[in-house]
């Protein structure tokens, strides 16, 4: 039962990733693309945690933690660049 539910959840989160990737491509403004990237990394954390449950391995947890830290730093850096034209003044 858990395996079936995990397959359904993989499908749902993949559709969510596809939708945010679509917004990343068509996004009319640069800040829309930053927001789409932010959503995309959060979705990838979700799918990695689900895959960790599927494989019963805690290895994927470390990857998810790294992605969450690096994604936050990336979002902040892109936003600061759009705000000032410079990241560290």
């Amino acid at each position, binding site marked *: 039962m858990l395996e079936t539910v995990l397959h359904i959840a993989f499908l749902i989160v993949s559709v969510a*990733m596809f939708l945010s990737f679509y917004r990343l491509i068509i996004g009319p403004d640069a800040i829309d693309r930053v*927001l789409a990237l932010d959503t995309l990394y959060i979705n990838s954390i*979700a799918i990695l945690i689900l895959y960790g*449950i599927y494989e019963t391995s805690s290895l994927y947890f470390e990857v998810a933690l790294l992605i969450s830290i690096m994604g936050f730093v990336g979002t*902040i850096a892109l936003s600061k660049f759009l705000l000032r034209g410079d990241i560290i003044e």
Partner: protein
Amino acid sequence: MFEIVLSVLILIGAFFTLVGSIGLYKLPGFYMRLHGPTKATTLGVGTILIASSIYFTVKTGSLSLHEFLIALFLFITAPVSAHLMSKVALHIGTKRVDRTQDYIDKKDDKDSLD
């Protein structure tokens, strides 16, 4: 019993992740689009992380709390990045949807946001 609780949590999490991304895909203006992912997606990932914590606690027999590290980090950083993105959008003058504008803004037709 354990599998049912886990399945419900995973399905709720996946559903909210999808709701956040549908909001990002469908809503017309940037300030509207900001709402979907920053709320729904963190809720969805939080629920999936609770499910993962329960699963590894039952599977290994010892308490597994390191999933809450990601949850804590996400719940701290999501408002910060959302605030910064809205600040950028105000600064570079992203267009708003007409019917969401203030009455005062419409009257003197001047961008008084700073």
